[in-house]
């Protein structure tokens, strides 16, 4: 049965994005908010809103009981979790189902299976998807693990099975480091995620991060091609593109087909992303993890294939079969997204929870700005620094970079420090223009080009 009223269990720009998709489908929206978000753009835009607790996320957006009560109280038949917060919390998805509502995403069981990094790796192997050489499942014996690390070869990554978003990862260069880092990693993972389980993965040097967007209704599965997100700082993506300029058409089809095979193997329902490392030198790709939710960078995919991924998620959660056939999915043009964060790139990306000043939003052909700001908005310090995403689309990658520079020049937020100057500098960098980057390219570049990041915003 089609959904009629969705509770949005998130905040910021993704809450705004969900409201827009729901409204176009004629679905009513209820926005939850902490006391720090009472005057947010999402609260203003939603049909209804309901307070769920004090500013710290643990006491509001991560409070399962408060979120469920809000949904019941406002008569919602469904909950959209967005990304982050409760989006990949299997117990939450279960609880939503038990309460008789639809969770806009896969079932708790699928989240559990694919969210746990070690069991996801096994699922990928079973579906015939290449995985990074590493431990099969969790390591429980340190001495045996050290022997295995030796066989795989150093440097090796020690990863927390409950980690994500780049958290809970250690890299050991040799056996001695391994023996000291592994117990530390286990203790930290236990403290941070409540699960000290670890697994091992070979470090692929000079890899690109390539991920495939998939959609499934539990019976039919398609991919919407790939995104490349190789520009990362502290393992956080800052610049994303679709399609990847590194893949040949033959590799692209093979890689995307492998993602569909994995989605089908777990009978996936909803929108999901399968992440890979791609080795330029060999043309090999390896599964790293699956994200069982909508992702921050979904608009670059929407821009090149013309599919509204949020609308599809809502339709699927309402029980509709997937109407798009694989043959209907065609790439048109090239899209780039940059993350506009409230951080000062000239001051080591120090968070800058200031006030949005004289706001100018870029527009014109091929420009999209998904954001949470308005003039005079005080950015709360309690959540991540993402203010919005500037997405440009053009016929070619070269033209998309030119368009990005043009759109960045139009974006102003008064005295608020943002990552805008970083992207102007990157768009002018020869390596970025040539697409000659990898996941470890950005950090050394930032160190070498610190002077370029101090460029004043605003001006004319």
């Amino acid at each position, binding site marked *: 049965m089609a959904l009629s009223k969705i509770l949005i269990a998130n905040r910021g720009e993704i809450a705004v994005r969900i409201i827009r998709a729901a409204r176009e489908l004629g679905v009513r929206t209820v926005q939850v908010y902490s006391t*720090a978000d009472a005057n947010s753009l999402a609260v203003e835009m939603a049909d209804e809103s309901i307070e769920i607790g*004090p*500013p*710290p996320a*643990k006491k509001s957006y991560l409070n399962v009981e408060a979120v469920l009560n809000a949904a019941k109280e406002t008569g919602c038949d469904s909950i959209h979790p967005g990304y982050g917060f409760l989006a990949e919390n299997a117990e939450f998805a279960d609880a939503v189902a038990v309460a008789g509502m639809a969770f806009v995403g896969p079932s708790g069981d699928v989240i559990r299976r694919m969210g746990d990094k070690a069991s996801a790796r096994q699922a990928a192997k079973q579906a015939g998807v290449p995985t990074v050489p590493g431990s099969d499942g969790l390591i429980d014996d340190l001495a045996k693990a050290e022997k295995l690390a030796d066989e795989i070869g150093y440097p090796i990554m020690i990863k927390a099975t409950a980690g994500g978003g780049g958290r809970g990862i250690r890299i050991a260069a040799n056996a001695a480091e391994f023996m000291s880092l592994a117990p530390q990693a286990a203790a930290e993972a236990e*403290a941070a995620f409540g699960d000290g389980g670890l697994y091992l993965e070979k470090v692929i040097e000079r890899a690109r991060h390539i991920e495939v967007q998939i959609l499934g209704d539990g019976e039919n599965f398609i991919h919407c091609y790939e995104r490349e997100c190789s520009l990362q700082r502290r393992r956080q993506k800052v610049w994303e593109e679709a399609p990847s300029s590194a893949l040949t058409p033959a590799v692209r089809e093979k890689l995307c087909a492998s993602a569909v095979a994995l989605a089908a193997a777990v009978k996936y329902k909803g929108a999901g992303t399968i992440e890979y490392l791609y080795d330029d030198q060999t043309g090999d790709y390896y599964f790293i993890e699956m994200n069982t939710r909508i992702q921050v960078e979904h608009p670059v995919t929407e821009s090149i294939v013309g599919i509204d991924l949020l609308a599809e998620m809502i339709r699927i959660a309402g029980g509709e079969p997937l109407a798009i056939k694989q043959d209907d999915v065609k790439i048109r043009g090239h899209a780039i997204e940059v993350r506009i964060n*409230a*951080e000062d790139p000239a001051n080591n990306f120090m*968070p800058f*929870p200031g006030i949005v000043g004289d706001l100018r939003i870029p527009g014109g052909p091929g420009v999209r700005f998904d954001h949470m700001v308005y003039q005079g908005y005080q950015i709360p*310090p*309690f*959540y*991540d*620094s993402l203010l919005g995403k500037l997405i440009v689309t053009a016929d070619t990658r070269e033209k998309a970079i030119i368009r990005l520079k043009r759109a960045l020049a139009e974006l102003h937020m008064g005295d608020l420090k943002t990552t805008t100057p970083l992207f102007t500098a990157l768009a002018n960098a020869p390596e970025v223009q040539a697409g000659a980057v990898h996941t470890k390219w950005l950090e050394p570049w930032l160190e070498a080009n610190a002077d370029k990041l101090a460029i004043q915003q605003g001006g004319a």
Partner: protein
Amino acid sequence: MSKHEVKAMLPGVFYRKPSPSEPNYKEVGDSVAKGDVIGLIEVMKSFHPVASDADGKIIAFTVDNEEAIAPGVTLVEIET
């Protein structure tokens, strides 16, 4: 003897310990020296240490662990 107040330089959430499983940096009655870490402020998911800017003895914590704070609020009172 006079009272000194250590104030928050950033908005965010105040923590009295480095991680949930560790003990508090300082307790009431502890001596502190200029530069000693007395807590953390989490702002936009990044953590910034708060150091004492005076020598003396802690007489009170004026905000709770995990409390939301505005810049300029007093975190700790020190007898100098």
